[in-house]
């Protein structure tokens, strides 16, 4: 079959290409040449056809009715091979399916795992798991590293308190507890309740800045014309000195902002929530 087609294609192809070429070049002259070539093509067709056809059909018949012995061997081989392939395919498919399901499962499990990792390593300023108050008792001050802590006080526009720090800066070393004061005055004639939050800059240093006690996150009530001192008792974790990221940090700024708290308003405490 293939040989027959090949023969035909070759003969006629050459004739056709020759014809087309000649047509392109000499349209007038070629008509006769083209007809000659075409006749040649047809003649070859006729000559080709019977021989190859006969051989092809013979071959075909032979394939359909082969001797029985050969059939069994060949089919058994192909059948077992096919079965083997099928089995292999099945195992490969199951492996791939298992890997796919595993990947999906991993992506769901990654969320709590990552959270655990962040807690352990303290990345992103999140609450470090090994953050216990016994550390205050046992920690040793790192005398060589002096850090300047500057203080900043802000009030929200709506609160009428006068709020300012009592010292602009203080020099501490990591591992040593320190005390600092802010002063707040209520110049108005009615009691005002304020609530504050704080911020530490640079915020990578924020994870080392530990407050033992302060006046933030709880409502503080100031009576009319009252002035109070607000202390902050804090320390900087001794591990601050060993963190390579903090090697160039010499100044930490602690900034407090007071907001007015409305009656009955409950602000959420920033606990160890996963935000």
């Amino acid at each position: 079959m293939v040989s027959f087609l090949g023969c035909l294609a070759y003969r006629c192809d050459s004739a056709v290409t020759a014809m087309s070429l000649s047509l392109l070049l000499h349209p007038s002259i070629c008509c006769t040449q083209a007809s000659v070539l075409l006749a040649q093509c047809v003649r070859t067709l006729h000559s080709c056809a019977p021989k190859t056809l006969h051989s092809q059909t013979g071959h075909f018949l032979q394939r359909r009715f082969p001797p029985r012995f050969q059939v069994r061997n060949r089919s058994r081989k192909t059948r077992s091979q096919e079965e083997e392939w099928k089995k292999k395919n099945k195992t490969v498919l199951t492996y791939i399916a298992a890997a796919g399901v595993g990947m999906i499962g991993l992506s769901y499990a990654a969320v709590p795992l990552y959270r655990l990792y962040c807690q352990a390593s303290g990345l992103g300023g999140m609450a470090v798991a090994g953050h216990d108050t016994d550390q205050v008792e046992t920690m040793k001050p790192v005398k060589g590293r002096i850090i300047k802590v500057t203080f900043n006080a802000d009030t929200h526009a709506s609160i009428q308190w006068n709020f300012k720090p009592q010292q602009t800066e203080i020099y501490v070393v990591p591992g040593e507890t320190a005390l600092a004061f802010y002063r707040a005055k209520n110049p108005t004639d009615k009691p005002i309740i304020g609530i504050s939050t704080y911020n530490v800059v640079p915020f990578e240093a924020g994870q080392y800045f530990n407050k033992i006690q302060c006046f933030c996150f709880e409502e503080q009530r100031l009576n009319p014309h009252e002035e109070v001192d607000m202390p902050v008792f804090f320390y900087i974790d001794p591990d601050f000195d060993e963190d390579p990221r903090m090697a160039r940090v010499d100044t930490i700024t602690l900034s407090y902002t007071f907001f007015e708290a409305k009656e009955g308003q409950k602000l959420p405490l920033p606990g160890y929530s996963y935000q």
Partner: protein
Amino acid sequence: MSTAMNFGTKSFKPRPPDKGSFPLDHFGECKSFKEKFMKCLRDNSFDNSKCRLQSKDYLECRMDNQLMTKEPMEKLGFKDLMDPPPSQADRDAKP
């Protein structure tokens, strides 16, 4: 700070204080201790390590006036400012 759409950067997360909040000193009971501490800071160019005794006194005042929960000073990091135990003092006294 949190208004910018910085999804990759870490933002600051405030943490509550370890021992909670100081009650306000409305009556100024410990004001004198505070003044002593501030004076010490100003004299020593705001060096905290030189004024630790005054800060310890202030915290003790607060504890005495129920403005702070009573706690042993070691837990607040003042272990080095406490008196040495009696056995050590006897050993030091011996020639």
